[in-house]
């Protein structure tokens, strides 16, 4: 399944079929992008639903001159940033995402610690480094999802790593 398959269905005005393919292909990536911005899984899922609902509503207006993924990621970033501005939940670390059971207590605590370290980085570095690991270390994917040049993504990654190393050392 490719973007071309989806665009072909859109040209035939088969909105429901195109939307199903779009979900299959992009729901995970969109969710991860939202999560990298909001940093809370439950809220990210809610906003991901909002995004796909919006996409369903504007699907007939999609202009095939723009790449499908670029269009989708633009809507995703804008909606996520609006959600971020609208809510103040970010002020505290959402620990409900990190409730380690007895069996994975150590891993859970480590996750919590990494999250706390990441929170001390500038926002863009947090997003870049989170997405980098969520997207299996693909700089190309991160650049595309955040609409940044690959060189800029690498530069943010390097700065974030240096900063995190300093935090760990201190």
């Amino acid at each position, binding site marked *: 399944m490719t973007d071309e398959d989806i665009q072909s269905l859109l040209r035939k005005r088969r909105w429901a079929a195109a939307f199903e393919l779009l*979900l299959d292909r992009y*729901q*995970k990536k969109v*969710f*991860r992008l939202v*999560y990298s911005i909001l940093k809370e*899984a439950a809220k*990210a*899922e809610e906003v*991901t*639903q909002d995004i*796909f*609902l919006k996409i*369903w*509503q504007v699907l*007939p207006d999609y202009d095939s001159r723009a790449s499908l993924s670029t269009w989708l990621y633009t809507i995703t970033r804008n909606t996520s940033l609006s959600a971020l501005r609208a809510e103040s939940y970010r002020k505290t670390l959402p620990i409900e*995402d990190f409730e380690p059971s007895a069996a994975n207590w150590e*891993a859970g605590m*480590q*996750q919590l*610690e*990494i*999250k706390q370290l*990441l929170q001390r980085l500038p926002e863009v570095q947090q997003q870049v*480094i*989170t997405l*980098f*690991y*969520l997207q299996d*270390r693909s*700089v190309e994917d991160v650049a595309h999802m955040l609409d940044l040049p690959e060189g800029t993504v*690498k530069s943010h*990654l*390097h700065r974030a*790593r*240096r900063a*995190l*190393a300093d935090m*760990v*050392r201190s």
Partner: protein
Amino acid sequence: MNCRETQERLLESFVGAVSPLEKSQLERHISECPECAKFAVLQSQLDLRLQEGIAAPQLSSGFRAGLRARIAWQPREPWPDWLPDLAYLAGSGVAIGSCALLLPFPVPVVLGTGVLVAFLAYSLQTILVSALEQKTD
């Protein structure tokens, strides 16, 4: 390769592949420089912790069902895109026909004028709508 270059290459190695030549240069420098060796160990540990700490979140099993339920509540499009054009055409036809029947002018003149006015009005409306759509986008 100095320390700064070594550390940059080392950071680069976590992001993309480094060439075999660069790798051997890195290893040589690190084996001779305790500061860069410490940096390399720290970065490797950090990479491992980030890999383990940034776990991919999963969408819940009810995600799609919830989305479908929300979509089902959305109002349907009241009419297809082409319906207003058809309505305009039909309305213009009725108006021109009525004028041709009722007005005390020769029928060809009324029909010709009616078609011309309807065409001009439709063109103007199309231009205005597309301008508004572009502005909205």
